[in-house]
């Protein structure tokens, strides 16, 4: 699985967990799930985009 797929899987499971843990109403659970899932995915993509602008380090020497 790709890095993106793993990140999405992780965000899905964690968002689902907290939505069920913190909310009782189905509608509220769905709303919180979307907030957490999109927040984690969006936050990671923004962070990745910011890091992309940083100069990359030289490749590590192969032992």
């Amino acid at each position, binding site marked *: *699985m790709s*890095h993106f797929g*793993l990140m999405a*899987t*992780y965000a899905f*499971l*964690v968002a*689902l*967990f907290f939505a*069920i*843990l913190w909310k*009782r109403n189905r509608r509220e659970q769905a709303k919180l799930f979307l907030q957490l899932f999109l927040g984690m995915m969006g936050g990671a993509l923004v962070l990745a985009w910011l890091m992309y602008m940083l100069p990359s380090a030289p490749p590590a020497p192969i032992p």
Partner: protein
Amino acid sequence: MSEAEDRATAGVPSESRTPGDAIAGAWRAPLAAALAWLLPGAGHFVLGKRGRALAFCAIVVACAAIGCLLQGRLDSIQPNDPLSVIATLASLGSGVVHLVLKYVTGYEGSIVAAGYEYGTTFLRTAGILNFLLVLDSLDIARGRKG
């Protein structure tokens, strides 16, 4: 309610008890917490929150299973590495999942696997999420949460 039932549910608000609630009395909270740690979702199950229990169990086991498929590290305490104590505690949170992986299957993970870091994160997350379930079970058992 009989006198015996009164004694059994002492300290537990009646509105916090549900029809499927399987345990009562002074041991209600510690027993629910112990079960919650041992088997993900079991604390909620014995407190009558069956649907939530199954969902929590599925999520925690899925996290651990993905971590194993990716060959993540199952943490253990390393000498001269204080952070490994915290990581091991986090990993231990998944209860029977951690114990079975470590002592029954002898699973350790593989540092050369492509998904090693992700797998380790999934395995630790499974434990930490289960610790939250232990705290939630305690709150439900003590009547602080429905």
